[in-house]
């Protein structure tokens, strides 16, 4: 497996996913949800994983963070973190890794925080679980973190309950929680989808700034291309459980090569140009149990040819990106 | 002129729709998990056996115990057939009046089941109606119904039944009391059982009534009655099967308790509880079979309903899927 060219080509990758496949065991057989996904993440890099619902991006995040639950399971492939294999760890090892080196941020700020504990208690609990601090030191750290994420009068607010904060502030606290143990990788699954537009902008810029500061790599999973364009360095596009395009964000967003990515970008209403009709991709993403032969996108593709229905395209280098299309 | 622009399209017939639904059901996770759980299958089989034996006791019982000429005091107090002194005529023995215990039990089961099924059905209907009304209309109606439910819940079932029974005895003339015994028991069990349904249905109704399909119907002109019974009701019925199954087990036990205490079914229409009561009086003279066998049937019947109800609740719970 060779990596695509990234800003720091000499540094070994922080995360390396090779040939990952995830399937769900059903009484009628196994349903493959992710097929043969490979990519890598450099230290401190922000990678966006974008796709529509059902494309498999959240599952990829779950598989990497070890939160994949039965009946889902990793059926093939390997995941390496700092050179060490992590997809076949025991539950205890995985839990340790998850708290300390890999952190997760989820979509719903309401359910990510325990409603019966104060924010201070939750922060200090997490801090002391992973770092050798006493109660006083932990509280000081927590105060510093609150200030870092921009919550004013942190001293009083530390003793308040989650319901006393707004959605945007809760999400900021969650970012604080995720960063407090200085992880090397943060997996953020739709972190701003549930927030208002004005708050979304604040939270995104905060996330980007803090991650660069703490040198944490981020895997940002979202369906919103605008968010990707905002803060990511590289972006991976998923469709029907496969990775179909991956490359630097400027290239993928401004000059997409895969017909699906092209169609996706063209169908976003633009603020700078007003057209009477949006470009649309006819049809819908196929269900996992009704995948067509060959390229999963070919029934909807304007550039399809005869061999698209028989051959599975591989991710090949094309310019600065890698694209899975037979007709480039 | 065809209803469709394409004459190939046919509306599926009622029969085709029913067949489609049956096929989907048999193939579903529900049936699969049913076969997976051995104890549930066992409980189900036993329930079916008892239901058939009890509801059709007229045909399944070897003797017609209501016919006074069919029994003979000379046959009284005979032990079960496999013991010394027992006769094959009376498979499980006979009682103090010479009646065959097996037949008595089957008739008793019949009464227990009928009382149980009718009370549960009435509770269900009453509770669902009140739950939908309460949840959908809200405000004063909701407050009244729910506070009434709270009040009813705070009264123990047996006490309430004793109360009803006492009042009925006071009001009714002596000769119709025996006839009214069953309706009175059904009434007490119904009045003390509807609250569970009402509360659960109400909660689900409140969830459903804010959904957009209800709003769409309102905008199109749907009136309250139409929305409550055509839109909301079909969508809130899912927990009923669980509640009713569990309630059936409880109702049968309740009736047995009342009959045991002497305020239930009269001795000439004995239910399982009455039998246990009778047998209890002769327990210390050594005739254990009159108590044991009806009790076993009662316990296993109730247990089976509980097992089925619990299994249903697990299977139908979307969060556990």
């Amino acid at each position, binding site marked *: 497996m060779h990596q695509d060219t990234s800003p720091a080509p000499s540094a070994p990758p922080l995360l390396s996913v090779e040939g990952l496949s995830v399937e769900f065991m059903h009484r009628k057989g196994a349903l493959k949800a992710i097929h043969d996904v490979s990519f890598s993440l450099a230290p401190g890099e922000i990678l966006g994983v974008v796709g529509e619902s059902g494309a498999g991006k959240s599952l990829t995040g779950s598989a990497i963070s070890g939160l994949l639950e039965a009946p889902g399971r990793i059926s093939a492939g390997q995941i390496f973190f700092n050179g060490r294999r992590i997809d076949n760890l025991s539950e205890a090892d995985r839990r340790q890794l998850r708290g300390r080196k890999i952190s997760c941020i989820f979509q719903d700020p309401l359910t990510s925080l325990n409603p019966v504990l104060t924010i201070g208690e939750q922060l200090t609990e997490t801090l002391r679980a992973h770092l050798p601090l006493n109660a006083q030191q932990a509280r000081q750290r927590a105060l510093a973190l609150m200030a870092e994420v921009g919550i004013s009068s942190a001293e009083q607010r530390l003793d308040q309950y989650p319901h006393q904060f707004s959605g945007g502030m809760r999400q900021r606290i969650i970012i604080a929680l995720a960063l407090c143990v200085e992880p090397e990788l943060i997996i953020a699954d739709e972190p701003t989808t549930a927030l208002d537009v004005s708050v979304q902008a604040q939270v995104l810029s905060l996330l980007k700034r803090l991650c660069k500061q703490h040198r944490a790599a981020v895997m940002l999973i979202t369906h919103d291309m605008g968010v990707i364009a905002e803060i990511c360095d590289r972006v991976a596009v998923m469709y029907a459980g496969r990775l179909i395009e991956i490359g630097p964000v400027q290239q993928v967003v401004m000059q997409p090569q895969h017909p699906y990515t092209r169609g996706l970008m063209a*169908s976003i209403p633009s603020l700078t140009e*007003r057209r009477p009709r949006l470009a649309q991709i006819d049809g*819908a993403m196929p269900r996992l149990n009704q995948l067509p032969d060959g390229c999963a996108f070919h029934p909807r593709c304007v550039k399809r040819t005869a061999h698209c229905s028989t051959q599975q395209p591989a991710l090949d280098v094309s310019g600065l990106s890698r694209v899975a299309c037979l007709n480039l | 002129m065809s209803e469709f622009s394409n004459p190939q399209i046919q509306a599926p017939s009622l029969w085709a729709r029913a067949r489609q639904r049956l096929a989907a059901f048999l193939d579903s996770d529900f049936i699969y998990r049913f076969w997976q759980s051995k104890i549930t299958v066992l409980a189900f089989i036993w329930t079916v056996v008892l239901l058939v034996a009890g509801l059709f006791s007229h045909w399944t019982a070897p003797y017609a115990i209501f016919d006074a000429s069919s029994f003979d005091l000379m046959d009284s107090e005979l032990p079960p057939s496999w013991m010394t002194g027992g006769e094959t005529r009376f498979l499980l023995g006979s009682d103090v009046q010479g009646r065959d215990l097996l037949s008595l039990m089957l008739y008793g089961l019949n009464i227990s089941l009928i009382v149980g099924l009718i009370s549960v059905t009435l509770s269900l209907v009453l509770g669902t109606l009140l739950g939908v009304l309460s949840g959908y209309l809200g405000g004063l109606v909701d407050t009244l119904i729910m506070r009434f439910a709270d009040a009813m819940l705070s009264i123990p079932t047996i006490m309430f039944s004793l109360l009803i029974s006492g009042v009925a005895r006071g009001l009714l003339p002596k000769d119709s009391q025996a006839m009214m015994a069953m309706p009175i028991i059904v009434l007490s069990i119904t009045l003390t059982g509807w609250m569970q349904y009402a509360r659960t249905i109400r909660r689900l109704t409140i969830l459903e009534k804010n959904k957009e399909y209800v709003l769409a119907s309102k905008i199109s002109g749907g009136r309250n009655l139409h929305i409550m019974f055509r839109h909301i009701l079909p969508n809130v019925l899912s927990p009923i099967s669980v509640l009713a199954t569990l309630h059936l087990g409880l109702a049968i036990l309740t009736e047995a308790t009342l009959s045991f205490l002497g305020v239930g079914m009269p001795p000439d229409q004995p239910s399982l509880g009455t039998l246990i009561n009778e047998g209890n009086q002769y327990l210390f003279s050594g005739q254990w079979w009159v108590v044991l066998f009806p009790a076993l049937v009662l316990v296993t019947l109730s247990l089976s309903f509980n097992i089925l109800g619990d299994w249903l609740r697990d299977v139908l719970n979307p969060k556990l899927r």
Partner: protein
Amino acid sequence: MNTAKQHEPEGLPTPIVPASRHALMEVQDLHIRFDVASPGLSGLFKRQKKAVLQAVRGISFTVYQGETFSLVGESGCGKSTVARALAGLYTPSEGSIHHAGRPLTGDSTASGRGIQMIFQDPYASLNPRWRIERIIAEPLILQNRVGNTRQARPQVAAALRQVGLGEADMFRFPHEFSGGQRQRISIARALVTQPDFLICDEPTSALDVSVQAQVLNLMSDLQDNLGLTYFFISHNMSVVAHCSDRVGVMYLGRIVELGPVEEIFRHPGHPYTRMLIDAIPKIGAQPGDRQPISGDVPSPLSPPAGCAFHPRCPLASELCRLEAPPVSRLSEQHHIECHHPAAVARPHLQVLTAIHQGEDQ
């Protein structure tokens, strides 16, 4: 017997001329308040101070026939409440709503007057126990235009064709369809009684981007072919910029800016509008172009005094804290509510600089 002749697709007359200035829906000084004190007897006994949620605090606007009028704003601004009031689901606490000259109150049947609505959540807007044919036929039955579902079949079939679905789909259940298809079914249900005014409450917010494009295109086609008037609610500025003719920006129950779509996006007058436009992640912009905005959306239970936006406004002054702002006209069609209308800076990006003409082929 073979009906081979292709009959004219229903509902597709020749495209109509551009929107006339005939006012279809007029809203005057609308206030909607909700009592959110403890319900029932406990409220009585606690003798609580009455807690009133002022969802809509005095708005006025007109929707003209054939146009798409959008209300945009964030959560808690009251746009959904306005939509429901226009659908006849709420009675105004103050002010009035007139549809085609006749007043609209909370108990009138909107559908009988040619008003219909489509909703945000495709999974909750169709009764999961009903077949599609019954769902689409329901408005016709409730309006007494047909006797039962069977008799409505030709119209249901036509409605399904109109939204790009197959006629045989009417015998299936909602769970057999995807989110985008369900929205189409909702549109079919809304159009079956041939309304002239369609309220769209965030119809594409729950859909993927490519599905959204399909649905928005469908709605645009239907508007051209059927002469519909759309009242569109959204929190997504890009969608609003794409499909609206006129836009109103709402904040905490008031319309802070209202005008034609090009003017709103090219020369936003109100600081909040500028903030919203700024906050949209723009594809192709250099990172770092944007200035993050301060503060969170306040709760509608306790709106700030004076101008509701003053806690977050970069132009806020003492006057803004004390007095509600007056209406300032920036042009004939475009007005804002602000104490400092002159202090408008040029926006960072040139938005809507290119508008493709040629909506009528």
